[in-house]
């Protein structure tokens, strides 16, 4: 018990480091993964911006990143992180590789939730003479919203898992703490505490995600 209280400040910091790197990666996923997913969708056959070339270039790029195991991506991106931030240590540095992993991950989820939309609904919008941008903003995004939110939840939970790996190479966060105390010092109490903390965090993310997705679903 005493060692928990001892590491409480450190646990606190680690928790917020995890939130920080996952948060940044999620933000990047929304900023870049969402548009890429939409591009994948609208350039598909039979859709209003059908374009074989764009579709395959973006698709191949995304598959390329997705086929690299995260732990290898992490190491592979170290020079890039260094170039970008001047360091490879700390939660900010870890968020770079997390973001790179999150973009294609979320893009595919966005694409598949957009595919769930009845093609007829999009066609009806084309038939009233709406521009591509209007259709994306007023039809695709609102119609796919529950799926987009569920997808963000899945991405967040995967990122929490990835963040533990990122922690091991100096990223900080809860994973880093668990490895340092649990693996290197055999301190089971701290390890259990971190595991419980991760479980609570994941449950919380899942619950809120489901709740929001349900609230925005008008179907």
């Amino acid at each position, binding site marked *: 018990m005493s060692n928990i209280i001892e590491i409480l400040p450190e646990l606190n910091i680690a928790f917020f480091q995890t939130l920080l790197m996952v948060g940044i990666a999620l933000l990047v996923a929304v900023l870049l993964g969402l548009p890429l997913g939409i591009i994948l969708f609208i350039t598909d056959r039979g859709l209003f911006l059908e374009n074989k070339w764009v579709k395959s270039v973006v698709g191949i790029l995304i598959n390329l990143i997705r086929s690299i195991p995260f732990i290898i991506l992490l190491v592979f991106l170290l020079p890039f992180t260094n170039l970008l931030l001047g360091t490879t240590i700390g939660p900010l540095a870890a968020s770079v590789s997390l973001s790179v992993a999150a973009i294609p991950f979320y893009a595919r989820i966005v694409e598949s939730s957009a595919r769930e939309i*009845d093609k*007829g*609904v999009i*066609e*009806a*919008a*084309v*038939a*009233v*003479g*709406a*521009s591509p941008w*209007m259709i994306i903003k*007023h*039809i695709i995004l*609102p*119609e796919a*919203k529950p799926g987009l939110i569920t997808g963000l939840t899945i991405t967040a939970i995967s990122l929490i898992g990835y963040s533990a790996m990122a922690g091991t190479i100096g990223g900080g966060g809860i994973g880093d703490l668990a490895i340092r105390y649990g693996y290197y010092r055999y301190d089971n109490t701290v390890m259990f505490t971190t595991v419980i903390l991760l479980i609570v965090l994941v449950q919380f993310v899942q619950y809120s995600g489901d709740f929001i997705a349900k609230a*925005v*679903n*008008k*179907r």
Partner: protein
Amino acid sequence: MIELRNLTKEFKSKKDRIVGVDNVSLTIQTGEIFGIVGYSGAGKSTLLRCMNILERPTSGVVRVDGVDLLQLSSKELRKTRQSIGMIFQGFYLVSSKTVYDNVAFALKAAGVENSIIRERVEELLNLVGLRDRINQYPSQLSGGQKQRVSIARALANNPKVLLCDEATSALDPNTTKSILALLKKINKELGLTIVIITHEMEVVKEICHRCAVMQDGRVVEQGSTFDIFSSPSDPLTKRFIETVLSFELPAKLLESIQGKLVRLQFRGDMAAEAVVSDMLQSFSVKGNILHGKVEYIQDVPLGIFIMEVNGDELEVDQALDYLRGRVSKVEVMDNE
């Protein structure tokens, strides 16, 4: 006016080539309600979708009000589509938007100023009789109500043409009637040209001024609805007409018939009973009316009698000749 000239649409896949529409030429006049009938797979939807280039024809010309749609840039095409409304069998409303937002979307898409959108949406919902549903979501509406919302959306930008792809096929007969009545009213009040695709001859009978029958991507017959109903020439057209105008006589009755079974067709405003009784008096034959019915095709009555005529063969033939000179059509049917 919608003009289609030698319109062909092929769907190519790696393996084969499907001809959806095969060299169709058709002229639809301003202000008319034009029906296109045919079985599933005949190419009706593909033809209709070529009228606003949802489907780009492989070859041919599509002109709406003199504008060649295939020559337009994508921006001009979008602008033109605002004057061609379209409704579908599946309604295709945006489920995450209220009735108001569904209709407002069409106005926003056309760049209508925000300040007048509210008023225009209310006006449109009044027209389709759904003003009180303005804040509901599509999932809270019945099929007929959804179709009304989609009609409001299609009419938002004052189109000159309304394309209807099986717009009533998902609705029950009463709702179908009310939607058809609404389309009729819009046609009359707004002078809108309406093109209706359907596999139900009832729909054509009810509201189409003229119609075309399609099979295997081709138009096999076209003409005024009354002409098509009263004298169909293509076998397919005949089959379609039968769905509305046929009678099944009980087998027992058919067995007991000794004379000739005759089908008389006449414009219903003519005194058919008088003609028949004149015939019975002038010739020594016995007659017996088994069935009679008057259908209104576009408000013009079309009457059909089925009767048995008995007697000496020569006399019966003369009696039928007499009828041929007085009613629109006389057919001797087999009594099988």
